[in-house]
């Protein structure tokens, strides 16, 4: 109270039009709102510039003098040395497979989640997909090794049921198959929730219209539901591919070192070989591929028809 009095007194004698110019408040608050994004732009952009800069620097092993100048040798090496081409290829192949399987599994799940009349079924589906999604990835991956591993549930079951002898092993980890399963499992929630959003937006009277014109449920699905949910499918596929292609922990844990996707190769180059320029070049290549994919998605889902 007593503090407020001199404050008010000090303000009272202000004479003349001291009002801020119209719109000034709005503008300043607008700039304030931009601050966080500006921060992000500056730091993200700076990191990218730094990455690119390193990717064209000549490399010298620790202790040796670095030659001056710029070079594209790292890019040439990344795109010609079979070891790294192989890593890029494995990344592409596994991401593609995981995306296809996540879409095949995710579409029926999302459809059921959106269309079921039972609130219980819906809640059950949402929880089954959301709970693993909210669990730490490393925990989930180790849990998956308990199922897929050489002494895991599936192998034990196969031996117990007599499908395999005790000397046989069904190899579900330490190979592409295991990593593929792990990636599918990792991207499935993203795919399901993306597709569910697209399906929820779809006007079901369009399906009724198709049925009123003689299309049975299967024909209605393939002629109306699926084509109209394509933007969602493409969005889910892009998200799934990009997430798979940048996977690091999944190939590390389920591949147990024998499957090297691009993130693992970059990690090895930077931390063990200490060839930062080459790691940076690999990262730029991965980034360019991602940007190309996003561009492709934007082209494919560009509005072909209104709303």
């Amino acid at each position, binding site marked *: 109270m007593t503090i407020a009095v001199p404050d008010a007194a000090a303000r009272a004698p202000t004479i003349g039009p001291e009002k801020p110019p119209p719109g000034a408040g709005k503008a300043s608050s607008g700039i304030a709102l931009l601050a966080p994004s500006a921060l992000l732009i500056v730091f993200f952009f700076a990191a990218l510039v730094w990455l690119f800069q390193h990717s064209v620097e000549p490399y010298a092993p620790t202790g040796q003098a670095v030659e001056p100048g710029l070079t594209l040798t790292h890019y040439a090496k990344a795109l010609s040395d079979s070891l790294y081409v192989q890593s890029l290829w494995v990344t592409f192949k596994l991401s593609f497979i995981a995306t296809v399987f996540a879409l095949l599994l995710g579409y029926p799940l999302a459809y059921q989640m959106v269309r079921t009349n039972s609130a219980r079924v819906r809640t059950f589906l949402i929880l089954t997909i959301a709970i693993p999604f909210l669990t730490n990835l490393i925990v989930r991956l180790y849990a998956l090794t308990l199922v897929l591993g050489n002494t895991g549930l599936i192998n034990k079951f196969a031996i117990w049921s007599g499908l395999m002898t005790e000397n046989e092993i069904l190899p579900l980890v330490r190979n592409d198959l295991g990593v593929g399963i792990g990636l599918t499992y990792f991207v499935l929630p993203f795919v399901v929730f993306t597709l569910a959003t697209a399906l929820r937006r779809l006007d079901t009277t369009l399906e009724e219209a198709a049925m*009123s014109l003689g299309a049975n449920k299967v024909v209605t699905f393939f002629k*109306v539901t699926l084509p109209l949910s394509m933007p969602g499918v493409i969005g889910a596929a892009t998200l799934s591919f990009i997430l798979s292609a940048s996977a690091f922990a999944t190939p590390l844990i389920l591949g147990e070192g024998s499957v090297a996707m691009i993130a693992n190769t970059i990690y090895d180059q930077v931390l063990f070989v200490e060839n930062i320029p080459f790691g940076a070049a690999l990262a730029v290549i991965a980034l360019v591929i991602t940007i190309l994919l996003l561009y492709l998605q934007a082209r494919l889902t560009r509005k072909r028809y209104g709303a």
Partner: protein
Amino acid sequence: MGAQSDIVLQLTDVTRTFGGVVAVNNVSFEVARGEFVTLLGPSGCGKTSTLRLIAGFLAPNAGEIRLQGDLVNNVPPYERDIGMVFQSYALFPHMTVAQNVGFGLQMRRVAKAAAAERIANALGLVQLGGYERRFPHELSGGQQQRVAIARALVVEPAILLMDEPMSNLDALLRAEMQLELKRIIERVGVTTINVTHNQEEALAMSDRIIVMSTGHIEQVGTPLDVYAKPASTFVASFLGRSNILVCEVERRDDSSVCARLPSGGTVVIAGVDAAVGEHITFQVRPESITLKAGADAGENTFAGVVRQVAFMGSWYEYLIDVSGTNFLVHVPAAASRNTFDDGNAVSVAWSADDMVRLEG
């Protein structure tokens, strides 16, 4: 067969509930070949549920639905011979106009050349020739509706179902489309069931109107019947404007009764048989009442005071206070050189024939 085969649709004691709520309650009616029948009622009266039962999007809990004599209670929509126009038109956004109209033909495996001809004819019928390659989002609301009509008619369905087809059009276009749609349907001769809450649309387009309320049928009749002889207070107040009054019978003659209004005064009602002392409800349409300046004497004539005047374009709407009871009176604007103002003393009068007794 004969008369039997002329019944395209037959509903018998059809009931449908949603989680304990009765949406359609024991509804029965028949629709003859070539007839235009409107299901009319306020929202929630069960008219749309009835249409969806006929289309096959809903199955009845009880009763029978027969389409061309066949029981179709559990037949899916795609196996019923129907055409449907949806409130939102429901045009496939990823298909051109021709593909939309041709969808039903494609489902019926009509050969391409024959289909193309039928699509062209259907589009010609709705005056959209040349729009084949457009997409729905490139069309106006009215044009989209025409495509929806063409799409439903091109398959030559046994029955055309329309769910509030005009509700997304603006008033002027709606009036135009009512007439045009009626012309198209008459030309094609298709049996039609139209669902609407719009009484003008129902009156203007229908051969028969089925008035529904809270899941059951209130009245079935020609537009003139339901307007001039409403069966219930609900129908009287839902279709057009009405003065609805309750009075007590004082005297009865051979062909009329004399009854006392609650506000005082007696009315003579023609063609009504009621016991002395009985309370009866009757209706007088606002356009049946004549207004005169000052007091007047005569049968069914009462002195009142003008309480409110509104100019409605082609008519004036007056609210006349007759001893505490408000009467709504419509007077054609062209005929009334001298309009009455607030507070003017007037007399209202109507003919004994213009009073319609209402049940319930």
